[in-house]
């Protein structure tokens, strides 16, 4: 399942997203004769929101008002207006809202900064987690003389215990090894 997802499904989804595009609603008779100017008009139209349908560009919308605005964009282009002038013309009438790519300004700051800020925060958390995972145990403070003595005493007593334990174990083994001898003797 996991392999199917990464090897097949994800690339397929990616390709679909890359290759699909809004269908253009431009009527043939709206088009400008000069292909370079028409390309500019389509590029501009794709940046302008259709105020009737809200979530489409005027280039993609079938609304009559979108058609009027497409013709208007083409007229301004034919009249020699720059892209900036035309976008400003639209924004003066319908507000910055018509610009599908919002300009960086006070009330859009969050929109522009949030992705970068979230990425940086995410990266920082990621790095912190990875680091704490790979980290070698840190060197401890050296023991004080008192602690050293305590430790020695402990390990000595441990050694004694161990020795005693071994002796008793040996005895036991010895004992176990000859039970028949004892009972049979």
């Amino acid at each position, binding site marked *: 399942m996991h392999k199917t997802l990464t090897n097949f499904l994800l690339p397929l989804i990616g390709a679909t997203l890359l290759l699909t595009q809004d269908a253009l609603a431009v009527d043939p008779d709206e088009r400008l004769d000069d292909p370079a100017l028409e390309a500019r008009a389509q590029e501009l139209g794709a940046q302008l929101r259709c*105020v*009737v349908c*809200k979530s489409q560009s005027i280039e993609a919308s079938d609304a*009559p*008002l979108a058609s*009027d*605005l497409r013709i*208007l964009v083409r007229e301004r282009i034919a009249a020699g207006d720059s892209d900036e002038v035309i976008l400003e013309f639209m*924004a*003066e*009438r*319908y*507000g910055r*809202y018509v610009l599908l790519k919002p300009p960086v300004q006070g009330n859009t700051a969050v929109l522009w900064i949030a992705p970068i800020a979230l990425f940086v925060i995410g990266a920082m*958390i990621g790095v*912190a*987690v990875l680091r*704490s995972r790979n980290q070698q145990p840190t060197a401890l403070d050296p023991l004080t003389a008192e602690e050293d003595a305590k430790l020695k005493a402990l390990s000595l007593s441990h050694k004694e215990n161990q020795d005693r334990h071994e002796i008793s174990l040996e005895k036991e083994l010895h004992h176990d090894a000859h039970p028949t001898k004892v009972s049979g003797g």
Partner: protein
Amino acid sequence: MRRVIFFSPLVLFAFASIYFAFGLTRDPTYTPSMLLNAPVPEFRLSPIQGYTEGLRSDDLKGRVSLLNVFGSWCISCEVEHPFLLSIAAEGIAPLYGLNWKDKPGAGAAWLARRGDPYAQIGNDADGRVAIDFGVTGAPETFVIDASGRVRHKHIGPITPEEWETVLRPMILDLKNAQNAD
């Protein structure tokens, strides 16, 4: 520290949810008018078929007035129309009409059938004046003060309730301010 990192996505999600929940309470159809408190755009429109008087931006100066965008093709305008007749009959401010993108004669025929509430009508056949006004759909009604500035934009049919609570008080206020000058 681990715990903080572990729960931070949840906390972020909670904040984002609250923020977006407030966003849901906003009206998505609301489009701010760029013309608010700005002078009406300059225009000069010819009369609709069968009428002698058109409409110019200068006609909207000198007293408080209403400008209503309508079309014979517009269903909501049909709904609004009877109430426009009663607004015109009340007569607290002249009601001007912008006949938006109508076929020649269609607007006039529509008004002949239903009655004509408008003091003057401009024929905006290609819709350019409506675009200058930032009109997104019909009907829309602009309240214009005596200096020719847009003071309010009403989107959709005017209901009696909105007339009583918003539009009429605003018009009377503007008229008082005009008289005080």
